[in-house]
């Protein structure tokens, strides 16, 4: 076999292996969970967004603020669900912030806590332990602290977070924020904004 032919065979084999791997690892579609407390907007909206975030991720904070404003402008046209994807190998408070959020969601206070946690992200991200500040936020959001403590001590909240992260990984997510807009995956706020322009050309 001559060198050119060998080169062609190697390149074709590489392409075949990668295409085969992608087919084998073909990622699932994300299902909307209609019972979820971590949702806002109109469930009948023609634009449904599922967002996977890490609460310590600065880009996620920017995305949350962008989407809040966007949904306020288009309240009937967008439905948003938030799922957990803590990047625990990069953000030391990723899991604890998700736990507080999940426990707040169980009292119907997910967005109330989110409205306090996100604007102060830069402050608590630098702390060795953010729990005192999270407890203060929880109190301010009207969360029952006894129920919060019970939730934090249980395994069920952590299981929900880990299950959603596993789901995210099976969907091919490896960074945040990742959005599924009517099941189309986009990563980062810039791509989110570009994709939303397809649905809302004037925005």
């Amino acid at each position: 076999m001559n060198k050119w032919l060998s080169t062609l065979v190697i390149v074709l084999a590489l392409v075949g292996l990668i295409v085969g791997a992608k087919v084998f690892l073909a990622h699932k579609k994300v299902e909307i969970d209609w019972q979820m407390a971590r949702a806002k907007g109109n469930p009948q909206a023609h634009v449904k967004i599922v967002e996977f975030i890490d609460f310590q991720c600065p880009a996620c904070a920017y995305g949350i603020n962008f989407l809040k404003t966007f949904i306020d402008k288009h309240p009937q046209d967008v439905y948003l669900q938030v799922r957990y994807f803590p990047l625990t190998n990069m953000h030391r408070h990723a899991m604890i912030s998700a736990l507080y959020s999940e426990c707040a969601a169980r009292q119907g206070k997910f967005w109330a806590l989110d409205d306090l946690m996100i604007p102060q992200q830069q402050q608590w991200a630098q702390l060795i332990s953010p729990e005192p500040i999270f407890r203060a936020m929880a109190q301010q959001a009207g969360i029952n602290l006894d129920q919060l403590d019970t939730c934090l001590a249980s395994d069920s909240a952590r299981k929900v977070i880990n299950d959603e992260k596993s789901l995210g990984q099976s969907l091919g997510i490896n960074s945040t924020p990742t959005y599924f807009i009517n099941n189309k995956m986009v990563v980062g706020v810039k791509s989110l904004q570009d994709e939303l322009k397809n649905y809302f050309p004037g925005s």
Partner: protein
Amino acid sequence: MLYVFIRVMIGSIFLVSGVGKLISPYQNFLYVIQAYQVLPSWGEVLTAQIFPWIELIVGVFVFLGLWTSWSVRAALVLFGIFVVVVGQALIRHLPLESCGCFGGWIHFKPQTVIVLDSISLLLTFLLLRSLVLTKKFSLDSYFD
């Protein structure tokens, strides 16, 4: 043997990097490229879809020692691009948490990456300077 070891190592870096990006949705690498704020939007999408294939092919060719003088030159150019792109991001203080170099497999801070890329650039230059030694135990030596 040292040059063969370096060649295999450099090839492996690109191989792992390319595979890591190719088996995950291209949107992940697109996000990485956007963070460096170097290209226009259409360039970002094109790069996100094509660049991992270039890395994979260069990686395999360098690893196997196939078209060695060209594949090592290509590796040199790629490391040069990485140093420039990461360097400009550091100079501009862009908010990069991870370089995104290996898809989602390994996370390196940009400050670490620029050091590693610079060392890799020098090692690749060494390979190019001593191609006879680099080509030992290579497919090129089998065909030549």
